[in-house]
């Protein structure tokens, strides 16, 4: 990463549910190749932030730019085209429960590529192997554990070799070792494929281990209070709320 190039820019964004304003004045930039952490306490709107970034919910005000394109100002077709270059891993995996893992991963490939069934089978095999789940092709999502569902969710999100991957609480509900392995996987994918990663989490261990950039949403102030490398933030911040968050409330 020699030159930093903005991948996603959030400009003066306000998130709201009806009259209830969740967060306002959000402005930050996600660079290409970043592992960008969206962090904050429970109920601060981290997940809502993600739904706006991936095109499921329109912001009340402000812009999201993918490269130079105004995401929410564009028409549905442009939005679809942009989001096709993104992969999303949902909190619970959100695998389609009526299909096997292989069919789950194959569906985006069948929809958007001209690969033959044989080639698709090979790609599916590769993606499952990448997340450490080779041989699980014919399993249904209900037959595997929560951690495996998350990993299969990542395999599906990676199916189309996206430029940007979104993770909603990847390590929630995982044991420490699995969570660590997931972090390693994310790092490895970023390093080898150059994929931009956007991670919504409040798992401190992950934040410090893999985050290269971040934004902190302060629930009490209803806005973002800091952005930057989490390790640097910890070292430099004077904001008591952020310090409390980054140190688990322990006094140093």
């Amino acid at each position, binding site marked *: 990463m020699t030159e930093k190039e903005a991948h996603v820019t959030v400009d003066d964004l306000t998130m709201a549910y009806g009259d209830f304003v969740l967060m306002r004045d959000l402005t930050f930039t996600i660079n290409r190749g970043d592992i960008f952490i969206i962090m904050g306490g429970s109920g601060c709107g981290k997940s809502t932030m993600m739904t706006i970034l991936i095109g499921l919910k329109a912001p009340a005000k402000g812009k999201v730019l993918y490269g130079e394109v105004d995401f929410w100002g564009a028409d549905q077709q442009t939005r679809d085209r942009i*989001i096709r270059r993104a992969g999303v891993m949902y909190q619970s995996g*959100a695998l389609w429960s*009526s299909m096997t893992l292989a069919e789950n991963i194959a569906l985006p490939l069948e929809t958007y590529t001209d690969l033959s069934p044989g080639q698709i089978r090979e790609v599916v095999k590769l993606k499952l192997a990448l997340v450490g789940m080779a041989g699980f092709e014919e399993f249904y999502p209900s037959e595997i554990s929560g951690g495996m569902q998350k990993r299969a969710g990542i395999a599906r999100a990676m199916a189309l070799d996206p430029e940007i991957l979104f993770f909603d609480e990847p390590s929630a509900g995982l044991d420490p070792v699995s969570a660590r392995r997931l972090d390693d996987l994310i790092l490895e994918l970023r390093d080898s494929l150059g994929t931009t990663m956007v991670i919504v989490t409040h798992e401190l261990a992950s934040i410090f281990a893999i985050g290269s950039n971040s934004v902190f949403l302060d629930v009490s102030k209803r806005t973002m209070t800091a952005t930057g490398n989490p390790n640097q933030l910890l070292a430099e911040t004077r904001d008591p709320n952020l310090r409390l968050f980054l140190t688990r409330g322990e006094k140093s």
Partner: protein
Amino acid sequence: MTARGEMVMEQPSADTLKVILSGEWKLGGELPGADKVQQKLEGRPGVRNLVFDTLELASWDSGLLTFLMNLGALCSRQQILLNRDGLPPGAKRLLELALAVPEKKDARTAEGRVSFLAYLGDQTVELFRSAGEMLEFIGDAVIAVLRLLRGKAQYRRSDLGLIMQAVSAQALPIVSLICFLVGLILAFIGAIQLQLFGAQLYVADLVGIAMVRLMAAIMTGIVMAGRTGGAFAAQLGTMQVNQEIDALKTLGISPMEFLVLPRMLALALMMPLLCLYANIMGILGGMVVGVGMLNIGFMEYYNETAKAIGLWNLGIGLFSGLVFGVIVALAGCMRGMQCGRSASAVGDAATSAVVTAIVGIILSTAVITVLCNLLGI
């Protein structure tokens, strides 16, 4: 003997009230309330401190803590200092833990009393909003069908096959039973009247026309609304809860084409066939009564039925079946897609799907009947 907590109050000095707790302070036992202390305090306006003596306290659980929380609220209202030193150490620590984060006053959404007019207004606005949503959904569904006709729709053929099987072959037993019995009942009711004129033979006409033109389609429609409409709503609702529909959307796959279209198509194709089958079962039901009870010959009954049922009646019946199929599928899918993100929302969606489908079926029957009347068929 039930556990019993005792409370005695003393006033060692003018501005201090001492609460002496003894016995078993456990939930479910007989415990004095904080109001006793309040009564005591009302007579003594000078009291500024509240202290505890718990040397005689045998055991305690949440019963003691809720009492102390109430007392704490009372004290802060009356600006009395509550001294926790005399409490058992465990209770003291738990109380401090419970009071560590101040109560959030604005967290609860205001659900105050709503006046009748406000309620009426809300409901009216809601009605218009949901009517708008329904029209939007129907519009989206029509667009999806048009894309299907142009061969552009994305859905899995295997899904369509599975759904078709679920809504047709697997529905045969219940449709058989219901329609057979409806035919039987119609024949019974008709027979009593027609026998008065010695016109039993016309039972065949009555059952045949009623079943073929209307009843088979309606009964099948209602069975399918309960059986399939509810299932569709529950399936899509669960997918909504599980974020599976979001996952489709972010992959740029239209849930309308991928999920709703195959369901609608399956029911639209299978309902007329089911209706045809239901016709036969209904006529069989009528025949059992006609041949078995009214002593009409089998061939006689058959010929009379064949003569009575015109092609138009059959056509109207099958067309109604098609319409009901689309209504059941749309109602089920729409409620499923609108489903909230909780288990109870899935239940509501299934209920609402069945109600919507049945109302739709009855309304469209009325429209079809009036139209046929106007056209003279």
